[in-house]
């Protein structure tokens, strides 16, 4: 008989697949309503271009988009695992990004050290900013959802002020945006274009961001921490039953603080792929909204690193589709509709598959026990 764990996983996968199909169906209605053909839309989405160059660029775009989404999903998931809703990932990563970009531009050290310093600063800022709602929750019982939402506004505006004021760099003639001073070359994260070149393909125009490697490593570390360590066990226990965790000696206050800070520290990394890989500074056109998308990605990925990676890739794929859809005369907002419906469907599917697998588990146990009554009886007699 199939192991219980594998069966649960398969059921989850089936649920997710059905959810995506349903979402495509719902979106088709939206596309029809917009006066276009769903088939054309699907073709456009899967059309990566005709030349090798175009295909490579498309793939690099998807991966580059998926990396920060994956990190954002991880950050949110750490909190979600114990029913802690860190809606403040958005503020945490923006503040972390600008401080790290500025600090990194102020000195020049060998690349490994320079990059490490920037990463550490980003994690520190993100973690410390997440410490505020955690402390408020633990000492004053302030709901972390409200606190983090408010702190998002504050962080966004602090970042806007910093980039204009104390952290502003020299603006090149004719440049419209303002930004922090450019990072020295030792802080430019080497790209992974060789992955394409290895197969004799051309290098993508934008480059495949090297932070992808960091993200993969981060995913593994987060998985190990959550699934294998004592801390991860306490996070899981707190999430499954706060009262049972408390009675078992898990300190809920400590758990809130450490999970929140860890979530914030991971959130601090969200902006770095872009800054270290392409822009080399924090500018006024820095990508916003990744923190909120991270919530959707985490939900989609069921708070598990592998699931989050798949979800991030899916979102990257859909984001890339915005441009070709426009060429096919289909409103690119269709992509947003698809993303929205997918998240909604997956949340519903998760709920259903979860219940199904729990019920299935009960039945399975009952069946297996019923199959060995003679053994049970001898045990009683003995």
């Amino acid at each position, binding site marked *: 008989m199939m*192991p*219980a*764990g594998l069966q649960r996983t398969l059921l989850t996968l089936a649920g997710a697949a059905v959810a995506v199909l349903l979402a495509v169906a719902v979106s088709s209605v939206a596309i029809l309503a917009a006066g276009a053909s769903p088939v054309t839309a699907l073709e456009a989405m899967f059309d990566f271009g005709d030349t090798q160059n175009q295909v490579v660029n498309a793939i690099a775009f998807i991966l580059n988009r998926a990396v920060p989404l994956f990190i954002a999903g991880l950050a949110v998931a750490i909190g979600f695992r114990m029913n802690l809703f860190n809606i403040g990932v958005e503020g945490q990563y923006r503040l972390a990004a600008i401080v790290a970009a500025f600090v990194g531009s102020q000195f020049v050290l060998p690349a490994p050290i320079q990059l490490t310093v920037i990463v550490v600063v980003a994690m520190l800022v993100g973690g410390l900013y997440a410490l505020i709602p955690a402390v408020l929750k633990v000492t004053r019982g302030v709901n972390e959802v409200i606190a983090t939402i408010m702190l998002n506004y504050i962080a966004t505006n602090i970042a806007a002020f910093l980039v204009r004021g104390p952290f502003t760099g020299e603006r090149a003639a004719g440049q419209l945006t303002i930004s922090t001073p450019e990072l020295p070359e030792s802080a430019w994260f080497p790209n992974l274009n060789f992955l394409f070149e290895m197969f004799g393909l051309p290098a993508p125009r934008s480059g495949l961001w090297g932070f992808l490697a960091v993200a993969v490593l981060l995913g593994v570390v987060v998985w190990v921490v959550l699934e*294998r*360590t*004592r*801390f*991860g*066990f*306490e996070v*899981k*226990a707190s999430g*499954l*039953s706060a*009262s*049972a*965790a*408390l*009675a*078992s*000696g*898990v*300190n809920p206050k400590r758990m809130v603080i450490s999970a929140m800070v860890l979530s914030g520290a991971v959130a601090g990394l969200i902006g770095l792929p872009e800054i270290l890989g392409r822009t080399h500074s924090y500018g006024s056109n820095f990508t916003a909204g990744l923190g909120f998308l991270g919530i959707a990605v985490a939900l989609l990925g069921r708070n598990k690193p592998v699931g989050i990676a798949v979800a991030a890739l899916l979102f990257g794929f859909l984001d890339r589709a915005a441009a070709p859809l426009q060429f096919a005369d289909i409103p690119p907002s269709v992509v947003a509709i698809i993303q929205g419906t997918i998240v909604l469907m997956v949340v519903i599917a998760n709920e259903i598959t979860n219940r199904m697998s*729990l*019920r299935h*588990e*009960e*039945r*399975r*146990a*009952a069946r*297996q*026990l019923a199959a060995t009554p003679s053994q*049970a009886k001898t*045990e*009683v007699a003995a």
Partner: protein
Amino acid sequence: MSTSSDTPATVPPAVELDGITKRFPGVVANHDIRMTIRAGSVHAIVGENGAGKSTLMKILYGMQRPDEGRIRINGEDVAFRTPSDAIAAGIGMVHQHFMLADNLTVLENIVLGSEPGKGGILDTAGARSRITRLGESHGLRVDPDRLVEDLGVGDRQRVEILKVLYRGARILILDEPTAVLVPQEVEELFANLRDLKDQGFTVIFISHKLDEVLSIADAITVIRRGTTVASVDPGSVTARQLAELMVGSELPTPETRESTVTDRVVLDVRDVTVRGTAGRPLLSDVTLSVHAGEVVGIAGVEGNGQTELIEVIMGLLPFDEGRILLGEEDITTWSTLRRREAGIGYIPEDRHRQGLLLEASLWENRVLGHQTRKPARKGIWVNRAASRKDTERIVREYDVRTPGIDTLALALSGGNQQKLIVGREMSGEPRFLIAAHPTRGVDIGAQSAIWDHLRTARAGGLAVLLISADLDELIGLSDNLYVIYGGRMVARLDPGQVTPEKLGGYMTGAIAEERS
């Protein structure tokens, strides 16, 4: 198989069940249930916890539909879809857990759901006179204008019965009506039931307290493992024979007579007071000590401070005054974790709330509460291999019936969940164990196994604080018995001398404070 099938043909039986079968995933529900209940009688249905009594009653009350079988009420076939159908057929149910709104009056509670109206306005006067009439004719006197929250347990039960009568029920189902009553209140209830019977009502009385069943019932049906195994006449069986029919094997008894009490104090609670937010303190000046090899029982009606006492000892509830010592050490300021690490085991009163992660595997539940100790821990890691191995040991030694240790805890029956918890809490050589309702909601087989484990551990020098609502369990297992009432220890009794009646007197505050 039925001895009551020779009922006179003139009056059709009030209830006839013919081959009722109900299947649930993972549960022995009902299988081929057959019984005939004579009109105007008290018919008891007995069986151990989980035998299928409650499911059967839910079927009879329209809350569940049988997969197979026929129900006849007063000779007519019926098929209930909802409880309203059952009520319309004259069936009323008094639930084990009262379903009353505390902040409404008795009158409001009784009419709730079938409010008498006059042009959209509640006809209070009409309802009051009807309730008073009903109460007087059945000897169920309750002041209709009192708030339910001010009533005692016995009065609340009378309100529940009145509510059912108010809706015109002629067949009353009482699900474990005496579970929450002390002996004196049980006598009153029985007087009421006899009254009802004399007036032609049919009472279906569900219980597993056999002495009570023998004293009230006119006929008894025994249910075991979801099916009817015997119909007996209460005049011709003893409680012991009845119990053996119920269990199908030899009976366990909780007796532990040879004393293993030492003079070494393991847990010492001194003058602990918890003021709480309301006016009355939750615990006041509670002092007790538990010695190695001793079981100290706490008797009390639920809600008199037992929960607070447990939480204070576990470090889950801060207290205002007093000290707690474990051995020589003052643990007053220790965290729950440190107390557990120091050797306090905890079988919680609500295993789903405090004892288990239902959606986690058995071996993960083995880690719970032991996450900082061997074998569950290895530095910063959870030692999965060792935890799994030790879970297998618990499954074996404590006879936890499960397909495997990767099964989720929720798939196990209550008794097996409890055996897992007992096994876990006995691991790591605890010095002191809190056992709160350790056999609540478990079947008799598991009950005797758990009692055995407690006895063995006690003989090995474990100090046990036993909190239970089962007076037989308390009297049978304890070396020393305290009674808690209103947050105070009102009596210390010798379980060898005390009777359930006397204990009941202390528990309800009927006998004033005294220390023997």
